[in-house]
């Protein structure tokens, strides 16, 4: 549910509305906000920029609701910024709003990466470009590892740890096909949390 508490910042017209109803946002304005965030935010900062735009500046969502959106965007399949834009867009304007927000969010980076792809085609064979990209790939893997370690801190019980290790060994080291492994282990993991996790819960 969308709560607009009395502490919720935003335009004064919204604070006078006691109903927990999302504000009416024109589609173009919705798309424009996500377009601007898509242009200006880099790397992992998308969530921070969206928080600033949606919660602090415009008051389209309250903080608690934003955090729920962020969690869902992280656990579901798909890129976090795109998932977040679909969540927010569909909350405000239904399915078409979700599509507009996602399009605004992905458009600018898509154009930038095509420009980079073009440069790679032209200059990718040069030794220096290959060396620089080799360094950036190492940085990229370091980023991936840091995300992995942050997520891994949440996995503390033996069976979930075993599930994570099994996926790493089979998909990563042994090159087993990923789809059957994920399809087998995901329901097991969720079912375990649903039915066995309660006993161990503090």
């Amino acid at each position, binding site marked *: 549910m969308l709560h607009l508490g009395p502490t919720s910042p935003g335009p004064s017209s919204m604070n006078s509305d006691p109903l927990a109803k999302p504000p009416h946002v024109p589609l173009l304005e919705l798309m424009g906000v996500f377009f601007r965030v898509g242009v200006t935010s880099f790397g992992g900062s998308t969530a921070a920029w969206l928080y600033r735009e949606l919660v602090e500046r415009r008051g389209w969502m309250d903080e608690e609701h934003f955090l729920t959106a962020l969690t869902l965007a992280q656990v579901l399949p798909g*890129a976090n910024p795109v998932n977040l834009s679909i969540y927010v867009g569909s909350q405000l304007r239904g399915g078409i709003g979700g599509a507009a927000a996602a399009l605004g969010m992905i458009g600018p980076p898509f154009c930038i990466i095509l420009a980079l792809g073009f440069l790679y085609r032209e200059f990718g064979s040069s030794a220096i470009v290959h060396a620089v990209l080799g360094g*950036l790939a190492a940085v*990229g893997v*370091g980023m991936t590892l840091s995300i992995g*370690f942050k997520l891994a801190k949440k996995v503390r019980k033996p069976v979930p740890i075993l599930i994570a290790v099994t996926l790493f060994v089979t998909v990563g080291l042994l090159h087993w096909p*990923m*789809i059957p492994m994920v399809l087998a282990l995901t329901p097991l993991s969720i079912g375990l949390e649903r039915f066995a996790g309660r006993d161990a819960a503090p």
Partner: protein
Amino acid sequence: MSETRLLALVLVFAPLSLLSFGGGQAIVADMQHQVVDVRHWLTGPQFADLFALSRAAPGPSTLIAALIGWQMAGFFGAVVATLAIYIPSSFVVYGAVRWWHAAAASPWRGAFERGLTPVAVGLVFAGAYAVLQAAHVNALQIVTTIVVAGLLIYGRVGIYLIMAVTALAYGLLQFL
């Protein structure tokens, strides 16, 4: 000819879209396996180069699909690969958001959240290993990877500063 290529792009990326729990890191291992080992679209080092570009550019790392599509079939390849990697997961998100609000009190909500985490962790580490393997890494790159991971976990260094310094250092090393 190019139509079969576009179809092949969809067949590779659309299923991966549904499995990208926690973002693009989760599917890098399988993407590398399919694009390099199974279909021979790219060599290992080429894949590692595109991975590096996708991490250096703004936007989600799943945009590596656009780069692979561009290499395979030009502009339309990039568009088709991007749609294939985002549309399936987007429908799942849209459905899940509706269900999430309808099932506010359901114990399944927490179970989904906690249950998907170990899956994402295993896939993220598998993805890191796959890129290291595809890139035929040297000792310097392994050291770089470990230092960067340490800086990001324990330090407060911005990723763009790290990237700029690394790019400069690796570029200058070419002249030694």
